[in-house]
């Protein structure tokens, strides 16, 4: 078995302790030697540190040389013949990958090879744009991003680094955004353009699915946290594109947040994979509700536009939510040994999932409310009702987050709930009393917030104390 790493200071402490234990007769001399033998010696540690320092120096030197070469090439790029430019592009891409293979399989340098492969993928993408420049290609430029993403995909699922997943997610998000927002009139692509189908980046879920599956199987919360906002981005773009009447997307954004919070609640309680869904879902809901809690914002929204109820996207989101609840209940049979019926499981799921469902229904209701009342010239009533409901929902969201923190014994959602409640208080103070309270009012407000935070911190500390006894 290889020796484990141990810093010199810790090794010195261990030697001193082992010496005392040997003196007291707790351990024999042979046992002390065997324990020390499990860890690298000070000389080995120093040698490795020196080697690592050399590697870092060499890496910096290589980067500087690479930068020098890039600058040299860049300054002469325009005067180079096309053939030389192409040879350079292919040479650099192939050379980088060759280096990556050599480091990974000959030198067993897995981490370094992953960085080199990432560089190779970046150079491949640069190659696409450089070739387009060399030949003055006038093609549909989002296609370049799609082919880039497709080339990165195998590296993302084969290697262990989230960096490549991050690159893939960035490429897919940019591609979907440029395709849907920039070329919505173009017609969907399926081995050719079809005007009958809208251009909504259909292949994004297919390209994201392998990475998503990889992240779940490797239990990589960080990687799931990369794909969840990509999915949210795509769903929001879909709803904006598929609407065939003018509606306000703010409710869709809030409803998508609710859908992701619902997906979080569909995971097993305490499953860390739920965290990214809840995080982004709460961000979307919290941001939307914060805006909708201002009467001035609700009053100004319908100005100049006739807003429709936005029924199609809301119907899709509500239907998706219902499907999530149904399938979660149907698939949860294993957790109780199969003894409960589907209606019983649905009731169980409802008890856990009703807050995000309520958020989704609230957004759908607000969209309908504004879409129906504004055209009949009752925007004032719509604005008042929206403001009241959004404020109530903000308080509800804060309470729900606090409840999650208590349920899962995690400080982050508990603190988030408290902070969101205080944010609500602050926003209402600014909105309603900011002009009247003056400095004294602000002082009182901050005192109350501080006192509330102190009280909450003490509560959490007291709650944790018995588990440390």
């Amino acid at each position, binding site marked *: 078995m290889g020796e484990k790493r141990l810093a010199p200071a810790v090794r010195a402490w261990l030697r001193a302790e082992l010496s005392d234990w040997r003196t007291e007769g707790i351990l024999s001399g042979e046992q002390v030697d065997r324990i020390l033998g499990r860890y690298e010696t000070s000389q080995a540690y120093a040698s490795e540190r020196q080697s690592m320092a050399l590697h870092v120096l060499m890496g910096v030197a290589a980067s500087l040389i690479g930068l020098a070469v890039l600058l040299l090439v860049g300054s002469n790029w325009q005067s180079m013949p096309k053939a030389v430019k192409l040879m350079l592009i292919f040479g650099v891409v192939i050379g980088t990958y060759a280096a990556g293979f050599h480091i990974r399989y000959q030198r067993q340098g897995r981490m370094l090879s992953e960085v080199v492969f990432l560089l190779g993928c970046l150079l491949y993408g640069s190659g*696409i744009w450089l070739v387009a420049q060399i030949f*003055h290609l006038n093609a549909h430029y989002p296609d370049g991003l799609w082919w880039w993403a497709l080339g990165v995909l195998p*590296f993302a699922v084969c290697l262990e680094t989230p960096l490549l997943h991050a690159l893939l997610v960035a490429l897919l998000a940019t591609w979907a955004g440029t395709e849907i927002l920039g070329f919505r009139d173009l017609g969907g692509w399926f081995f050719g353009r079809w005007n009958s189908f809208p251009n909504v980046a259909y292949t994004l879920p297919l390209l994201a699915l392998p990475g998503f599956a990889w992240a779940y199987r490797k239990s990589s919360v960080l990687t799931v946290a990369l794909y969840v906002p990509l999915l949210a981005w795509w769903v929001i773009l879909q709803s904006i594109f598929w609407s065939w009447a003018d509606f306000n997307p703010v409710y869709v954004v809030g409803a998508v947040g609710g859908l992701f919070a619902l997906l979080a609640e569909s995971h097993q309680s305490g499953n860390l994979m739920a965290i990214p869904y809840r995080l982004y879902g709460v961000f979307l809901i919290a941001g939307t509700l914060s805006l909708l809690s201002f009467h001035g914002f609700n009053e100004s929204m319908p100005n100049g536009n006739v807003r429709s109820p936005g029924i199609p996207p809301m119907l899709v989101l509500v239907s998706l939510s219902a499907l999530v609840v149904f399938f979660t209940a149907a698939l949860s049979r294993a*957790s109780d040994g199969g003894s409960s019926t589907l209606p019983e499981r649905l009731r169980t799921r409802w008890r856990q999932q009703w807050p995000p469902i309520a958020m989704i229904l609230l957004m759908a209701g607000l969209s309908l409310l504004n879409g129906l009342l504004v055209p009949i010239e009752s925007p004032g009533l719509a604005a008042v009702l929206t403001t009241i409901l959004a404020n109530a929902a903000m308080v509800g969201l804060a309470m729900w987050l606090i409840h999650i923190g208590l349920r899962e014994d995690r400080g982050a959602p508990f603190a988030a709930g408290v902070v969101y409640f205080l944010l609500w208080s602050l926003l209402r103070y600014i909105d309603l009393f900011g002009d009247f309270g003056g400095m004294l009012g602000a002082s009182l407000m901050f005192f109350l917030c501080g006192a509330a935070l102190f009280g909450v911190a003490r509560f959490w500390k007291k709650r944790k104390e018995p588990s440390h006894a």
Partner: protein
Amino acid sequence: MPETTSHPPEAVRRTMAWIDLVLAWLKVHERAVLLGAVVFQILVLASMIAMRVSTLVQGDTILLRVVPVDPRSMFRGEYVTLSYEFSRTPFAAIEGLSPDPSDRNKQNWDERTVYVWLQPETDGVHWHMKKVSIHPPTTGTYLRGTVFGPRRLAFGIESYFVPEGQGHRYEQAMRDHHLSAEIAVTADGKATLHDLRVE
């Protein structure tokens, strides 16, 4: 921390098992898969080049006069937007195409293929438009393009990457009508922009 249940549903377990199989296969064949990915990337770059080079090699080279466009959009950073005498042909002047440019008639004109029949100018160097039609000529040189809107025809030769500091030179030449585009055209009308020439 509350005790968590670790009994995922049967369907989830089966899906995870299937994913495990795929990941295990990828692990065993990692080198081959990565090599395949590299080859794929090289093929993508090569095919981009091949599509253009084949036109440049097989096509005849002609000179087309570049006409000025809206100066505000002419020079977008590194790219110059080029326009030709036939780029803004109205529907009424396109043989065989309904002249109605409205959205009601969109299915008849949107992304419709059109052909610019070319003939040489009297100087024997430049070429100019004879007519635009939805039918290609049986003989002679022509360009194949697409209708993207009223007075918006595109042929894949509308962008030129400008070397740093050269943009204004081309802009001025375009305004003075002294700019021509060297185009390679294949027998089936496919065009590739090769170079810009300031005359």
